[in-house]
């Protein structure tokens, strides 16, 4: 059962691996990218159905990537799930204001991330 293609931008290798494991078993085709600066190029090349985006990244932050892709007509409609370890309430508002579709704080329950992704692509 193919659920869609998801790009996971996350620089913590262990977290990325856990998420990939969870999503792959649910039928997602997961690509991991660990660097902020080159993330946009990767996005444009891959054209995924959904994006899981960490905030604290080397090079470009998750919010900066979000700003850039919302300004890009090809990517403006891409559903984005923001993942952050900076668990302040302010953070949720900031993510929403910048056009994030969904927002989750780390650590998360595995079931929640699955549900969020399904919600992202409207299933």
């Amino acid at each position, binding site marked *: 059962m193919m659920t869609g293609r998801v790009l996971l931008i996350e*620089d*913590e*290798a*262990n*977290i990325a*691996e*856990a*998420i990939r*494991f*969870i999503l792959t078993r649910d039928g997602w085709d997961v690509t991991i990218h*660990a*660097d902020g600066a080159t993330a946009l190029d990767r996005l444009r090349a891959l054209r995924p159905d959904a994006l899981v985006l960490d905030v*604290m990244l*080397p090079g470009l932050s998750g919010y900066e990537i979000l700003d850039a892709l919302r300004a890009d007509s090809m990517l403006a409609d891409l559903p984005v799930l923001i993942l952050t*370890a*900076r*668990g*302040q309430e302010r953070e949720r508002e900031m993510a929403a204001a910048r056009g994030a579709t969904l927002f989750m*704080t*780390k*650590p*998360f*329950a*595995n079931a929640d991330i699955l549900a969020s992704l399904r919600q992202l692509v409207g299933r």
Partner: protein
Amino acid sequence: MISFNLLVAVCLAYVGFLFLIAFWAERRADQGRGGWLHSPAVYTLSLSIYCTAWTFYGAVGYAARSGLEFVTIYLGPTLVFVGWWWILRKLVRVGRRERVTSIADLISARFGKSNLLGVMVTVISVAASTPYIALQLQSVTLSFSVFATGTPQGWALPDQRATAFWVAAGLTLFTILFGTRNLDADERHHGVVTAIAFEAVMKLVALLSVGVFVVWGVAGGPSEVLAHIEASQLADWPMQPGRWVGLIFVSAAAILTLPRMFQVMVVENVDEAHLATASWAFPLYLMAMSLFVVPIAVIGLEVLPKGSNPDLFVLTLPLAYDRGGLALLAFLGGFSSATSMVIVAAIALATMVSNHIVVPLWLASRRGRAGDAGDVRGLVLLARRLSIAAILALGYFYYRLSGGSSALAAIGLIAFVGVAQVLPAMIGGLFWRGASSVGVGMGLLTGFSVWLYSFFLPSFGAGGLLSATLIAEGPWGIGWLRPQALFGLSGMDPLLHAIFWSLSLNILAFVTGSLLSIPGPVERIQALAFVRVFDGDAAAPSWTRDSGAEAEELLTLTQGFLGNDEALVFFRTEAGRQGKAGFLPDATPDFIERLERRLAGAVGAATAHAMIAQHAGRAVISAEDLLAVASDAQQIMESSAELRQKSEELTRTARALSEANEKLTALSVQKDAFLSQISHELRTPMTSIRAFSEILAEPDLAPEDRVRFTGVIKDEAVRLTRLLDDLLDLSVLENRKAQLTIRAANLHDLINRALAAASNTRPERAFIFDRDQGAEFLPVITDADRLVQVFINLVSNARKYCDADPPKLKIVARRKAGRITVDFIDNGAGIPKEARGLIFEKFVRMTDTARAGGAGLGLAICREIMASLGGSVAYLPGQGGAAFRVTLPVRPLSVAPDSGS
């Protein structure tokens, strides 16, 4: 009686003792405990190298031959120190401000940093000093032979040439050992100066002792001595006013222009205020030295057999009365006078020869290769050592050539008149803005030639270097060219004749040349800086705004001359002055000007200017500057100098403020972000732990996945614990509540411990350690575990981040001035300039988290640890790779050593 062997043994022991004094003083200065070594008394005593063997032995001889005339040699300097004190003050001020290394450097720096003038003054100084050095060798040799002939059971007279040779060789060795130990930026020799000061006391005590013995022991009291003087022929000597005036004048000139006097008076001066003390104390010293000259001369003439050499009365009188001990003391006094003169003269001349002849030649030979100059200190030191040997060899050969026969005083006067040729240039340079390099060149050339022809060459006697007919009838029979009767001025005393013609023609050429030539821009700037030295910072820097020089490049250049540490300290201070602490300074004209002066302290003004010009090529004086220094604009510039200074100050303050503001903003942002940072650092490992725990709970997991995920959970748990440990550690350290266990340890062991502990960071790579293990054996009194923690951090950072192939870490331990430094220098890419100010802050990582494997607290902890140990850790720029210096006091500041706990 005194045997030859005893005499040699006493000499060796005395020189050995001087070695100890010099060595001890040098060590104290190194440790920053100069104390009384830098007192006005030592300064004044060091000036006494004016009194050479010529004064010690020769003054008595002079008095015996020409009555009171010897006093003129003391009156000249006394006049300068008492009456012309302001000339000396200006000279010392200019010398210190421009970091002048010698009198040749002074003239070169003043007149457009022209090396040609430096070479001319060097040649004159060497030519004039050679007979003078020969004179010292001769006097030591003669004083040796007195002990051979003066005793009844006298030992065989040693070969005088051999004696002179060994004395010259010994002095060469001493001078090289202490005069060229290091290439200090300020060119000061604390060891030598202290030894010289001791010798000054020695010769004064010796001469006074002989005087007291003669007055009370031989003559029977002061009134008897006066009666003897009345009765002697000395009282009848007619006073020749012309000779008196001439002699007072040349000796006054000599105290200003003799290379060795310039060395102790200006170059070695550590505090301008010492001059105030010297202005009365030095004349007093001279008075004490001349007090007993006449009594010794009169009694010597009466008591000793006819035909005795009056130049040696100081020795022969005690010997005639069987006072061996006193004679030995007098001998050491004479020995001191001779050696101190030779040592300082050789240092001064060697500095000139190497800075103005050898280094410029070397520089010219590599023109066009402006790149890395490498470590040239070795070259400069070698040049100085060879120069010292060459100068003493010259003195020795002059002694052989002249036969060592002329009366002592005559030789000294030749030197005096020779170096006096520099006087017009010096005084003109200090007081007359219109004096130009062309004028100086012409004046020096004229004066020197006339001196050579009318005084120096004839001094070898008719038939010596000049034929008897030439002296009597002039070259090709031209009467008005007779060396001792130039332009028909015959019947004059040869000394006066030489002074008159050499100096008046010198001054005439100097003034004419200066009036007829137009000085270049650098020269005009320097003229202003010298003449107006007391008007504050009136001079414009000779470098334009856009110097095009890179600070990093200049640092490399400077390291070649001053060595790594000196150069870094200088660049740091400069950066601080610009309000950029922690970075390299901007290559502003001001900075380059100061850098040039600093380098001038090591290699002379002309060479330093040329070196910097090679690196900042397009900065050498533009047309705009030419206009700016042309005489009209000059007036405006001077009045606006104050304004400019003010605005520079403002710019500096503004820059410092904006730096501070940036830092504050960065800090407050960081404080604000601190909680969210901690949250992030804690949540990240917890995320993996939670996700994988949930996955592990699933039943259908492949066994290899299960093993792998369990491993991840364990790793992340460890990371979490370490983070908490670091945070606690940091908070304890920041609040200065850390328990320190201070005890004695060996630095070598601590470095070994750190290397072993850090070896599991990227263990798969072969890491090369470059250590000087011998230098690491230093005792430290500190908290060893904490220090090791800092070392581990720095070493594992290097192992982690250094990507060179092969990766290498150089560890350098040193102890200097009560502090121990340990440098960790890797060969990787280093840390970018803009990040250097931040790396010691919390949660700052240079690369991604995965690679760092830590929370970015390591260097922050290091900084706190070093602060609580009374030391510091800092980034060292300009080392190629990443480099850190750990500094700690030899013993902790407040905490007493506690071996119990």
